[in-house]
């Protein structure tokens, strides 16, 4: 069961990484968002939230069943797993904040949407690092 959840978590995380690039691109110029763009932006944030929530769900089992063996197998991988968790938080909170900013910004607030686009880019980069580290750590030791 945990193996399945871990796999779903990983796949949703990779999807989130790709999805976060979309709001970064559509917000880059600062133009007002269409209705469909707003829906896509909300979906991207929801995807990151889902990936993070799945990670939180399996974290207790990771600590009990995997963590000790992972550190025995490779200390660097164990420490990088922790880094991955923290980068996932950066990705989530950046996407949430930028999502609120992009959706709340009035049509004339071009600068705010441009800044939100840059924050989404930062979120996408953090998410990409998270996915890469997660994949590597899972290859060292897993459920």
């Amino acid at each position, binding site marked *: 069961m945990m193996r399945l959840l871990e796999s779903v978590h990983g796949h949703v995380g990779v999807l989130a990484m790709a999805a976060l690039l979309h709001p970064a691109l559509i917000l880059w110029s600062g133009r007002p968002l269409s209705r469909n763009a707003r829906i896509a932006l909300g979906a991207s944030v929801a995807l990151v939230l889902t990936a993070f929530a799945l990670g939180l769900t399996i974290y207790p089992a990771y600590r009990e069943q995997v963590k000790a063996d992972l550190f025995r197998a490779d200390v660097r991988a164990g420490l990088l797993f922790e880094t991955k968790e923290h980068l996932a*938080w950066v990705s989530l909170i950046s996407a*949430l*904040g930028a999502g609120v900013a992009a959706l709340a910004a009035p049509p004339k*607030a071009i600068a705010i949407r441009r*800044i939100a686009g840059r924050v989404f880019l930062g979120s996408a980069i953090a998410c990409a690092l998270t996915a890469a580290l997660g994949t590597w750590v899972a290859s060292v030791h897993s459920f």
Partner: protein
Amino acid sequence: MKPDLPRRRAAVAGLVAAIAGSLGYACERGYAHIGASDMVTIVIREQRVNFYLALAIALFIAVLAGLVTAELASSEARLAALERALERLVLPLLGLAVVLMFYWP
């Protein structure tokens, strides 16, 4: 008050919350590493900062920063100044948060 002002305040507050939440969590990692190294770090960190508690504190920092920003950005001039500052600082600050996450695993 201009009709757009409340929405701009909310938007700027969201951006500040994103940065504060990221940097706040990075600083918590630093706190967890005080006086510790290598394998000892791991044990001490888990004793000092529970993962879920750390997330809750970082979320609190983000929300608090957002609320304070919304309160401070009460005029058009202050909002414009905040937007200019954010435009310059947002990527360096997010980059700093990512670097700190690697520095304090």
